[in-house]
């Protein structure tokens, strides 16, 4: 009994039921938090462990810079440069279209739109972000792909260009919503100061508001890039999925994501291992994008101070 008491005192166990409840809840929160961290660690370890063997067997250079992917041939080739370049070009292209459209939409919503129009557009953009990627793919397949084929006189419209257009639409909500938040946070004093010097509204938005919100806007763009590079389903439905080098907008191409998705169901042996290696490459890309995002956000904080 005596011993027990001193033990209790040392680690300060809760005494009342309320304190007990508090302690249990705290532990529960901690556990949930750790769950997410644990998952990230587990995934990272698993990706590296399962992605490395194929790279070691094939050779890092031949794997990353090989221009031919023929995983089921008698003499299999595992070069993923076509996938890397397709993913990079596809993402870049989507960014090139999505950023100007998204930024102008954000400026419109944050500064120019009347309350009624704003509500309508914001709702539309929220819905856009909620549409499943398979639906984007379906529409792309049924509407965009034939349209591209017809417009450019090609046999098939399933190509890099179609993927770029679908991705551009898919990344719009990320760019718009993060940019609107950033633009709304620009102190009105800046804008008033600009107007009081004789600037027009447009001059004020683009010379003062957008530069002042640049770190938030950049974060939105990076978020969009992350979404584009990680998208598999919609891309698979419109990009054609041949392992070609993306040397033309009208080439049927395979992205990093779709390379994994289309072969995983029947892959085995080295082929399967190589797919894990592709996933590892994709993983590294996403991690890199997240690092960039964090740097931008931290830089933004410093600017604000």
């Amino acid at each position, binding site marked *: 009994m005596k011993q027990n008491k001193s033990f209790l005192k040392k680690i300060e166990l809760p005494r009342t039921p309320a304190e007990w409840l508090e302690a249990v809840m705290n532990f529960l929160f901690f556990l949930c938090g750790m769950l997410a961290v644990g998952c990230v660690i587990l995934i990272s370890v698993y990706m590296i462990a399962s992605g490395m063997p194929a790279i070691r067997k094939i050779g890092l250079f031949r794997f990353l810079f090989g221009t031919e992917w023929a995983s089921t041939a008698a003499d299999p080739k595992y070069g993923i440069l076509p996938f890397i370049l397709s993913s990079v070009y596809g993402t870049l292209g989507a960014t090139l279209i999505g950023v100007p459209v998204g930024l102008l939409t954000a400026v419109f919503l944050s500064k120019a739109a009347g309350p009624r129009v704003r509500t309508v557009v914001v709702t539309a953009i929220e819905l856009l972000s909620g549409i499943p990627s398979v639906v984007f793919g379906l529409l792309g397949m049924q509407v965009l792909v034939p349209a591209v084929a017809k417009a450019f006189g090609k046999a098939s419209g399933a190509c890099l260009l179609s993927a770029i257009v679908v991705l551009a639409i898919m990344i719009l909500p990320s760019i718009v919503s993060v940019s609107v938040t950033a633009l709304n946070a620009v102190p009105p004093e800046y804008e008033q100061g600009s107007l009081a010097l*004789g600037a027009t509204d447009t001059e004020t938005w683009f010379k003062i508001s957008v530069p002042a919100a640049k770190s938030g806007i950049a974060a939105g763009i990076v978020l969009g890039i992350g979404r584009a590079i990680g998208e598999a389903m919609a891309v698979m439905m419109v990009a054609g999925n041949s392992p070609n080098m993306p040397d033309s907008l009208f080439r049927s191409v395979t992205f990093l994501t779709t390379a994994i998705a289309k072969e995983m169901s029947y892959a085995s042996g080295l082929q399967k291992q190589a797919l894990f290696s592709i996933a590892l490459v994709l993983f590294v890309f996403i991690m890199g994008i997240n690092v960039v995002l964090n740097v931008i956000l931290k830089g933004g904080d410093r600017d604000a101070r």
Partner: protein
Amino acid sequence: MENAPIITAQNLNLWYGDFKALKNISMDVGEREITALIGPSGCGKSTFLKTLNRMNDLVPGVRIEGDVRLRGQDIFAREMQPTELRRRVGMVFQKANPFPMSIYDNITYGPKLHGVRNKAELDELVERSLRGAALWNEVKDRLKKSALGLSGGQQQRLCIARALAVQPEVLLMDEPTSALDPGSTMKVEELMSELKENYTVVIVTHNMQQAARISDKTAFFLLGELVEAGPTAQIFSTPQDKRTEDYISGRFG
């Protein structure tokens, strides 16, 4: 002593929605004088100030009636662009609001808007404006540094310099020293007395000592009405209206 008016307001009425914020204001602002607008919070003095460069146009639901002229030109006329009016009638705000860019870019922002591109000309404008705002000696070695690194008083003088850079005819100041410490306030007040040589200044102030110290004319606003306007010495020594006397003697407000 009497200077010709540069701004004349006649029967100016202003509503924010259903609320009538200015009631039949008629007053003149003399050229190269400091005119102080005083009165308790919500009396309409800031509203009147912001009408002079049409910054009130930005407030949703605002309605203005009456006549305001700048050198005889109707400021509400169709051919008077608000941008041109605001270049001619500059404004300094209560809270210093330098743009989040370098000191140099803050000053050149206005001139660039109005078409000055020549580097030498811009350099010269920066120096002249900063000297005009008594800030040159403090910042001449760090023109390319962020304006946000300046002290509050320096930031406010930078905003004055920024307003001067577009070579306005009138400078409106909305409680420019209310957020500053006494030392910085003194500097800005000295600066205003110098600005009077070349500019017309209209200042809104809560601080009656400040109005008495620096202004040539004083106008007392109460509940949207202009109660009394006249030479500062007269307003503070022998006010004509009982309400003015009550306010300046500190009986309310």
